[in-house]
């Protein structure tokens, strides 16, 4: 069980990366995660969906000839020759998780739980640290202005990796703040679907029960015929109409 790097596939070019100060020779073209695995590491922490959605694998690195510390996701960032790598699998942020009934549609409520957001100096270090290319700074500023909807919209794609919080001079806990704002907006600023409500009412009143019972006792060949007919006409036979 390999990821398809060796075995059936040949490796043509190698490069050197530095992890925790040690040099490793790895094939070119791999992500940081796969390169470290190739080098012999097995992850339990610091690997998750491996597709850039879960935020389990934040990484900080430096490129040769450059002094800047860069950030990314280990599963999404390709290795570069001479790269220095350090993993950040966990950012221990203190989080408040209020019960649904305790959430309040009020920017003051967010500020009360996370007062440090008022210390935002708009330095934008957070945005430079975001592997999703979001602007946490703009979102924090939106909260300060009272615009929770805007903040929720700006952070919808946040994967809670926590790199922004590590960089923030105001010590803002962005991921939990954004999750809280998302919950508040989802609960209080999002319309409820009327058609969905109607369908749920129908189902709970047992409207479809009889038709399903009937279908379940119909032979497969007959169900197949009914479906073919349905595809042609766009209508179900009268016997299956829901009354």
């Amino acid at each position, binding site marked *: 069980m390999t990821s398809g790097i060796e075995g059936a596939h040949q490796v043509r070019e190698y490069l050197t990366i530095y992890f925790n100060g040690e040099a490793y020779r790895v094939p070119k073209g791999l992500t940081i995660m796969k390169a470290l695995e190739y080098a012999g590491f097995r992850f339990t922490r610091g690997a998750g969906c491996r597709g850039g959605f879960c935020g389990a694998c934040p990484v900080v690195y430096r490129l040769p000839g450059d002094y800047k510390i860069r950030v990314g996701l280990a599963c999404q960032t390709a290795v570069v020759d001479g790269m220095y790598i350090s993993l950040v699998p966990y950012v221990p942020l203190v989080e408040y998780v209020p019960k649904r009934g305790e959430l309040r549609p009020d*920017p*003051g409520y967010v500020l009360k739980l996370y007062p440090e957001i*008022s*210390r*935002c*100096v*708009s*330095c*934008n270090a957070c*945005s*430079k640290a975001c592997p999703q290319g979001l602007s946490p*700074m*703009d979102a924090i*500023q939106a909260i*300060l*202005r*009272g*615009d929770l909807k805007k903040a929720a919209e700006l952070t919808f794609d946040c994967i809670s990796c926590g790199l922004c919080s590590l960089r923030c*001079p*105001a010590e803002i806990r962005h991921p939990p703040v954004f999750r809280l704002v998302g919950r508040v907006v989802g609960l209080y600023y999002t319309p409820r679907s009327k058609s969905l409500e109607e369908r749920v009412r129908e189902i709970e009143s047992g409207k479809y029960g009889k038709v399903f019972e009937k279908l379940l006792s119909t032979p497969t060949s007959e169900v197949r015929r009914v479906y073919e007919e349905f595809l042609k006409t766009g209508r179900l036979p009268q016997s299956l109409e829901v009354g």
Partner: protein
Amino acid sequence: MKRDFSEVERSSLALLAALGYRVVEISSWYCCGGFPGATALEHVKYVSSLRTLSVAYRQSRELGADSVVTSCPFCYNTLRQAEQLPVSRPGEYVRVADYLRDELEPYRGGLRVLHLVEVISARLSDVAKLAEGRLRGVRVAAYYGCMLLRPRAVAVDNPDNPQVIERIVEALGAVPVRYPYRTYCCGSFHVLAEPAIVRGNTERIARSIASSGADIVVTPCPLCLYNLRRYTNLKVVHLSELVAYAANLREAVSPETLKVVASLRGET
């Protein structure tokens, strides 16, 4: 202001529209850092203001705009200082602009930063026309606070003896009353950590105003407004609301202010 003083925004925008200005909100703007926490490191404070100006400048080129206007004296103060930075303190400017290097073209100049007071005072005859003497006879004490007058380089008027708000009051047909503590600090953001300072300062201001015989106090600053309302019994309104009321833009004025002003005019 967006969150806690939306009436100031509403009345300011209504007033500017009535005076024929087209006002567009800066596409993304940042807390100026005029509040505590940010002020300890001065250059950090200017980073956000310079970023706001950089965004505003870019947007102004698309819109054909030439000025940035705010009705918050803190924002005015910080933005105005930041605006002057390239000329007033070129070394500091380079240091601040360097923070923006990776993000956007740093602002170099080309915009005027104005406080609402300056816009209104430049259009006194038009304001008088809109006001139609609605506040005739009302005795108004102007309370300036600090941020429009200090430091001297960004003062909207003579910091030792400002007259700009009194002139606006006159244009509204009201009677300005002058008193010694017009520019005495209310205690500002110390309301958060050291409220005793604010209590002492506002009491001093209140005594000074009481002896002047004013019917009402007008201030251009939301924080001054908050502190004076919280610690004194004065009838205080924000300047933008008073002018909007006088200009008959009542839908833009908060019910609270409507009540205060109406009581002065004997309305019910």
